[in-house]
């Protein structure tokens, strides 16, 4: 089955980390990502720019047009910072991956719709 792991975290907590800690964390993420990519488990994914780089387009403002606003679609303490697309046998395996995510924070595990 295919799942997307959505990595969320608190931007302010991230901002207060020392550069050495940030460096160390990226090192661990790189290692984790490399290992699971090599094993064929991770088949895609991206790290996202921080939420302040986001722009939101909303349809259906009543006039059939759209509105554009600065920022992510939902203002929350925890924001999505990246995602991975993974291929595993079942939810347990996807949860095991999420549990080992080195940047900690919060991980949402969501199955994708099977279009095959």
């Amino acid at each position, binding site marked *: *089955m295919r*799942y997307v792991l959505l990595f969320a975290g608190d931007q302010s907590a991230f901002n207060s980390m020392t550069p050495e800690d940030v460096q160390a964390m990226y090192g661990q993420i790189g290692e984790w990502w490399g290992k699971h990519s090599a094993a064929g488990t991770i088949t895609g994914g991206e790290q996202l720019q921080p939420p302040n780089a986001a722009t939101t387009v909303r349809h259906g403002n009543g006039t059939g047009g759209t509105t554009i606003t600065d920022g992510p679609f939902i203002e929350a303490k925890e924001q999505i910072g990246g995602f991975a697309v993974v291929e595993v*046998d*079942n*939810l*347990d*395996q*996807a*949860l*095991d991956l999420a549990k080992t995510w080195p940047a900690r924070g919060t991980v949402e595990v969501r*199955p994708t719709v099977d279009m095959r």
Partner: protein
Amino acid sequence: MEASAFQDAVTTVFREEASRVVAAIMRSVGDFDLAEEASQDALLEALEAWPREGIPRRPGAWLVTVARRRAIDRIRRSAKLEQRLPLLQTETAGGREPDDRLRLIFTCCHPALSRAAQVALTLRAVLGLTTAEIAAAFLTSETTVAQRIVRAKRKIVDAGIPYGLSDETHLHERLDEVLTVLYLTFNEGYVSAGWETSGRRDVAEDARWLAALVVRLMPREPEPMGLLALMSLHLARWRARFDDAGELVVLRDQDRSLWDRGAIANACALLDAAGAIGRPGRYQLQAAIAACHAEAPTYEATDWAQIVTLYDMLAAHDPSPVVRLNRAIALREIAGPEVALREVDAVALDLDRYHLLHATRAELLTELDHNEDAAAALERALELTLNPAERRLLRRRLETVQRTSHVSRRAG
């Protein structure tokens, strides 16, 4: 057969067979939702047919046959499932099928399901309760329970929750989840029973039966034994918990001659057997505490020091504020109300929405002659519980405290 005896016989059969039926159909079709629905169909059909025709000689085989037929009906209605049909038409040769009910239990208690869904699904798929019975047991509507079960089963499919334990390394984590579900179910039955009118199913007994099943299926695991011992110890004191008028009797005032000594001895023996495995855990420790109470000839003769020690060990496994609160209650007996109150106050913020925190504070405050504070704590406790027997007990205490504080104000 008399109606109630017949009902008891059906309950016994359903408890033993329901989960075997789900597991058997599951083995054939590999579709949890279908297996569970077909089994439920068979149980409902039994509830109609058995009062007329009597309980069949081999009720398990009867249920599997009907469930298989219902599964075929359901498959016929769904084109998508057509390829599974041949699987169901091959009847297994007689004799008992392998007991893989544990896989069923682990699936129903998967941590990706909400607690309420785990409980409802376990009661229905493993114990064979009907949706109506679950609704009655948890004082909720049948629609709510039905929706909860439908959603849970949809999630099992959509989210790819595997059947059973997919990875042995998760055994203890997942077993803990199962035991939590059973203990919650037990507590729901234990606390709210006794005041609800007839027709309510004995959920606490159901939960104990499930714990006994897990013990049978996992004989080398000590924690299920601990949980079973704990439930048995609570149930052994059942008759003393309410007086003739249906009022709640607290431990201190219980008539200990009403306790079931045989059941207590059995539970203690089970706990010893669990202890011999040498892997203590929170259910064994809670059962050990319950055993200290159960074995004490009087409230005063209780080994409180031992109980406090056991609570310290329990806190190492389960550092929750509730454990600390209960420890404080025991501590009062050896260190006095002042020390106990300090301990209770330390968790007051964490447990502000827990009525027993306020009830305990009130008792200690009364003992220390702070009657007005005690009254305020009792009022807070009353805001937080809906259980009628508990409410009546709290009201009686509140009246006493108010009378006393009134008298002392006049005197002063």
